[in-house]
């Protein structure tokens, strides 16, 4: 598997070169959100706002009203938890192009409960006008800039930093409202987003070898959600759908799918893999195992659903080599 390092740090500088209207706002987490290179490259377009997120979000709304496009950078929790009223009234209500880059989504941080954004999709999805994007790999992290930039109005992005796998072909960028079909099958539909997609990609080849036919879809646009093509696949599936997310089982991808299925009157079973309750501080691999959002958790869930034992071990999952894949077949546009 290809691992890329500091993807956003390098990419943002190149991408923003000619986009003079793009301003980067930081709340004292400049290197932690990989915008230190941007600060050094374009100091006049970098605004240090201090540890004061409520002002930062309303201030960004003001900048956006005057034609600038603020790229707000901080940890995800300090965007949606700390400044929710400001996002609602200064950004979302007036439908302003403020692009919010939320780092450390879910349990991707040892920072513990104060730093783990486990209900951000749930909270931000309730806001009218809001677009929500979730990055799963280096290609997503690079191409999310264009998606956020061209999307109308405010955008909230679950962003990755540091060492990131490249799961998707570098030449197949993220597109608004377009899911990535990673495998096709009729027994079960698996919808994954964010870092859970890598986990699913570890488990699925082994499950396929055991004879399961799996439709795997990576969702990067959580809102507006492109439900129709997925619903057709679920309707045709034998067992229904599993959602897998680095987020609370309340309000995220699982809940989105529950609403879609219920509204369509589908009568198919939904299984949610996600975080139950609050987590605590530890390393990412440990937490993903502990809170059952890793590859093994998916295997176990499928064993439960199919009432079959696959005899797949942790070591087998670790050994799976993932090369960057081409997204299969036609685009599932909005």
């Amino acid at each position, binding site marked *: 598997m290809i691992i890329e390092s500091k993807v956003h740090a390098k990419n943002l500088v190149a991408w923003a070169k000619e986009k003079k209207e793009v301003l980067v706002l930081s709340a004292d987490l400049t290197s932690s959100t990989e915008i230190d290179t941007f600060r050094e490259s374009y100091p006049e377009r970098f*605004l*240090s*706002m*201090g540890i*004061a997120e*409520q*002002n930062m*979000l*309303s*201030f*960004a*709304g*003001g*900048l*956006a*009203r*005057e*034609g*600038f496009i603020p790229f707000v950078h901080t940890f995800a929790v300090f965007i949606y938890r700390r400044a929710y*009223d*400001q996002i609602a*009234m*200064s950004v979302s*209500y*007036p*439908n302003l192009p403020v692009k919010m880059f939320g780092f450390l989504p879910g349990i991707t941080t040892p920072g513990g409960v104060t730093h783990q954004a486990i209900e951000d999709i749930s909270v931000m999805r309730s806001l*009218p*006008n809001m677009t929500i994007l979730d990055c799963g790999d280096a290609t997503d992290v690079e191409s999310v800039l264009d998606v956020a930039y061209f999307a*109308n*109005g405010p955008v909230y992005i679950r962003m990755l930093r540091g060492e990131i796998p490249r799961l998707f072909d570098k030449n197949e960028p993220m597109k608004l409202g377009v899911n990535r079909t990673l495998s096709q099958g009729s027994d079960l539909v698996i919808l994954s987003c964010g870092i859970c997609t890598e986990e699913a990609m570890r488990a699925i080849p082994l499950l396929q070898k055991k004879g399961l036919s799996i439709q795997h879809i990576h969702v990067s646009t959580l809102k507006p959600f492109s439900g129709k093509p997925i619903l057709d696949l679920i309707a045709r599936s034998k067992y229904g759908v599993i959602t897998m997310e680095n987020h609370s089982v309340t309000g995220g991808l699982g809940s989105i799918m529950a609403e879609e299925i219920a509204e369509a009157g589908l009568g198919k079973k939904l299984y949610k893999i996600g975080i139950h309750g609050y987590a605590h501080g530890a390393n990412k691999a440990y937490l993903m195992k502990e809170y059952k959002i890793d590859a093994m958790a998916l295997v176990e869930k499928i064993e439960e659903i199919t009432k079959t034992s696959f005899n797949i071990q942790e070591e087998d999952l670790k050994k799976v080599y993932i090369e960057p894949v081409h997204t299969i077949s036609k685009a599932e546009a909005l």
Partner: protein
Amino acid sequence: MEQFEWINQVKKIAQGIRKRTLEHTIKNGGGYLSQACSSAEILATLYTKVMNLGTVENPIKPKPFPGVPGAGNSRYFTGAEFHGARGKEYDRFFLSPAQYALVVYSALIETKRMAEDGLDYFNKDGYSVEMIGAEHSPGMEVTTGSLGQGISQAAGIAFARKRKGETGRIIVFLSDGELQIGQTWEALQAMAFHKLDNMILYIDVNGYQCDGKMTTVMNVEPIEKRLESFGLKALRIDGHNIEAIAQASESKPDGRPLAIVCDTNPTKDMEILCDRAPKFHYVRFANNEEKQKYILFSQDVALG
């Protein structure tokens, strides 16, 4: 002589704001009346003497609510049209405590920016002249009813305008109660740090908030010292003294945002309100008898 003439004109407009707000409160059975008492001279001076706004040829009739802003709403407008055309050289006005909307509407009518019958649409279902105004309401262009957000949004606009080389100033009207909010101080420190000396804050220190006298709810004094320690240039004046308001407004920008702390009286020229002390935030008549008292008062008194 000419210099006294403008003062008389501002005085007349301030009296008009009070009278209009009182009459409306009686008609409506309630209203934000003490806010008119305390801020009438500040708003009258801003609209007639201080702010460089685009002209409005004919007083504008308030429009129906245009729907919320969004990608699909091409009918949307803000209340900024009451301040005339937008231009690099023009000032922009931001009402931070949107609870003062009625007072601003009265000021817009008195200065011939809003139609004489504009208050007939106040709080009227389906109209833009809302009780706690939002960005579609006359004289407003951002949504500030959630207190503390107005100053931050205005600071973002001030930063952007400075960056674009626009010379117009950002005028923000604040209430003293907002100084209890954390976000206000976040905004103040950011304004000082980013040297937004194109901003002028007018703070209406009437000393009262919803629960009563501010010093019994949560003290914010000494305001001018606190502002100075945050890096602003702060002047403290009598907020009913029109000349003092105008003079303080002419203070030359020196890299620091300017705060004009205006001491005011929430019952100014309306002694009848004193009976309600210390609850001035919103006047709602307890019974018909009280309403009759206010009607008599409005007929008897010339208001200053």
